[in-house]
């Protein structure tokens, strides 16, 4: 008990409260929507979630450093369009090449943000609000009003979303989902166990102190933006795979969804605290709410948004309340534990005497 209390703090398992809320939400909708607890629902939601989750991982890295990347939606659209056009033009291009190009292109766009923010010292909101517009304009100009259409894309790409990597009975696990999961795990490990990850927290927590401590603040922030861009590029690739039809509005507004996921997932928007797993939990929660509402027969198409807004608010609020409660319980338990330990020590001392 002592060891557990010493080692595990409520903040460290804060994602659990989100999981708990998620379970409550799913349980509620299971009573409301026929056939809700079907594998099909899981497949539908998880595949859509994969795109948001990958982008949210990148956003988390940036937000941890007390910055924000609002250009994500435009990067996703631009990369999806560019890679789609490329594949349409050169149908023989191997899958890994397309995959690599998507990530590289996203990375390049992210690097532009990174240079402007980290080295140009432009506030991230301003910089990425600017590139949000600029990247979108680039897409409109680049596309010349041509859309990427499914039948111009190679078969392997179109088959990707239908493939199942693992099939357990009716449960199909799609490659997109596995990929997103892998990204989440890798970056969670990076944050927890690599010095770079810890530095991101330090920079966001106190940028001045980070500089004084000799941390390579500019470089680390730049890399965070680069990674965010690269992951948005990956999300763009997934977007292309999933939707096939890429118009100039592709990915529009995604940044807001991603920021919402990150914030609901408990990542402090002013930097310094949060986790990838939390961001994933946040993204899942919002997505499940959205997807469940449009499946709920009792609610008209016009009432969905009003309810969605309220539910997001309630989710964030209950998260805060539960977490606060947990913290109090933890503090009390720990105090009791310490008192007991002190008492034992005192007893031993008297016995020894």
């Amino acid at each position, binding site marked *: 008990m002592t060891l557990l209390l*010493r*080692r595990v*703090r409520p*903040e460290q398992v804060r994602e659990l409260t989100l999981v708990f809320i998620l379970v409550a939400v799913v349980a509620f909708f299971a009573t409301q929507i026929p056939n809700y607890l079907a594998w099909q629902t899981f497949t539908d939601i998880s595949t859509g979630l994969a795109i948001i989750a990958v982008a949210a991982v990148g956003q988390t890295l940036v937000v941890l450093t007390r910055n924000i990347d609002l250009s994500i939606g435009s990067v996703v659209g631009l990369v999806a369009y560019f890679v789609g056009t490329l594949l349409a033009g050169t149908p023989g291009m191997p899958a890994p090449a397309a995959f690599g190009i998507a990530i590289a292109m996203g990375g390049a766009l992210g690097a532009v943000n990174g240079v402007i923010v980290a080295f140009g010292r432009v506030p991230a909101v301003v910089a990425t609000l600017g590139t949000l517009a600029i990247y979108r304009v680039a897409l409109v100009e680049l596309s010349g009003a041509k859309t990427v259409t499914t039948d111009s894309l190679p078969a392997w790409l179109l088959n990707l979303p239908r493939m199942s990597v693992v099939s357990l009975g009716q449960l199909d696990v799609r490659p997109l989902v596995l990929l997103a999961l892998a990204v989440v795990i890798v970056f969670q490990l990076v944050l*927890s*166990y*690599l*010095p770079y*990850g*810890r*530095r991101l*927290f*330090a920079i*966001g*927590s*106190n940028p*001045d*102190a*980070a*500089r*004084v*401590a*000799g*941390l*390579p603040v500019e470089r680390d922030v730049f890399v965070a933006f680069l990674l965010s861009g690269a992951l948005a590029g990956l999300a763009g690739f997934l977007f292309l795979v999933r939707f096939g039809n890429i118009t100039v509005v592709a990915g529009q507004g995604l940044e807001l969804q991603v920021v919402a996921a990150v914030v609901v997932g408990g990542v*402090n928007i002013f*930097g*310094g*605290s949060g986790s990838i797993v939390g961001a994933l939990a946040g993204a899942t929660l919002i997505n499940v709410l959205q997807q469940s509402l449009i499946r709920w027969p009792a609610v008209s198409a016009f009432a969905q948004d009003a309810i969605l807004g309220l539910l997001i608010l309630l989710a964030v609020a209950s998260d805060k309340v539960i977490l606060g409660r947990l913290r109090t319980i933890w*503090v*009390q338990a720990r*105090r009791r534990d310490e008192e007991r330990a002190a008492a034992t020590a005192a007893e031993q001392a008297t016995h020894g005497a």
Partner: protein
Amino acid sequence: MALQAGEIHALLGENGAGKSTLIKIMTGVVQPDGGDVFVDGRQVRVGSALEAQALGIAAVYQEPMIFPDLSVAENIFISHRDRGRIVDRGAMRRDAEAVLDRLGVRLDVGEPARGLTVAAQQTVEIAKALSLRVRVLIMDEPTASLSAHEVRRLFGIVKALRGEGVAILFISHRMEDVFQIADRVTVLRDGRWISTRPRSEVTPASAIRDMVGRTMGDFFRRTPTRPGDVVLEVRGLAREGVFAGVSFTLRAGEVLGLAGLVGARRTDVGLALFGIAPADAGEVLVDSRPVTIRSPQDALRVGIAYTTEDRRQLGLVFPLSIAANVTLPTLRRYLSRFGLVRRAAEDAVAQGFKERLSIRAPSVRTAAGSLSGGNQQKVVLSKWLNTRPRVFILDEPTRGLDVGAKAEVHQIIDELAHDGIAVILISSELPEVLAMSDRILVMREGRQMAVFDSAEATQERVLAAAMGQLATPAVVV
């Protein structure tokens, strides 16, 4: 100025003399306009904090540079480059505990640094510097927040490092520190080098003369006052898990000192009386009438003011002008009928305090953040004096102030007492508490250990009580 291996070199100077700036140059945080830095006889350019680290220079800054969201252990090891590619949390915990142990401090190294007191932050900073293998260790007022006990531990370590050949540069405003430990003493004034002498050739008086450019009297002494009626009575004040059983009475014109080791929860008592972290048991009576204090507004209403020990984080709004800071708690008084701020009235009041407390600043429209520590503290005092409090709680009011400024603050405290204000003085500097207080309440780990009259209080007795070695500990909780 030269710093030799295996010496402890004290750097003295008034607030704003440029001591901190000098060390920031040495550690690459600030770039010099001119002059050179040599390490081992080689001229170097310290372009960044990283380069300083590579040269074996480590520093403890005056304002703790902690990462509030990281744990204590992570704070200590964040800039280490010698700890491999993968973070080993277990080893980090153990090492952190070991370093803190050397300092004689027990902290939960897994806890985020956010909740630490200034003193604890300072020890984390010291631990951070000690954990680096350094050749030059610079410490900017490391003892400012420490009580006598911790200071002794720290000096033990510093001496050990000297034995290992580390050069130590040490800044302090506490003369006794300097004479206890320094080998040589350098004095700065107005950003200029004045003198460097071996300690044996320095007396406190001569050092002060070098610092301020004139001779100064002895440590400040209170002038006697006749205490008035009881203003504040506290009975069995407690906050669960923090402190308990605090009881005392305080008369108008009386100064009650709160003494104790770091972490004795004196600050928490102050915060409870000011309504920031309200008490959950016990009674508070002001003018014999029971009052409930659940917010600073409540406290202000009954005439209780509190100056925080964390001047940097909680004391002043740095970008705002001195005048705006002074009137912040009482802004209503300076509003016109239409809710507009009457700048002239505001400036006049601030100007009054500027003169009365001799705040050195170009004008009252100067941003508070640009002042030196001592002057900032005076602005903080002005801000609360302007609320015309009955009870004034001063938490570490002289921390980081130079002898001159300190004397001025002591003077102010004395005047407060003469004006019939009841003062609670929380201070980790025992001589200060002894000199300034009419009575001294000693705390240890959230419990009230003893209350001494100034006549019966001695350094030894107070310290004994603070360390729990008093014959009859008043066990509460």
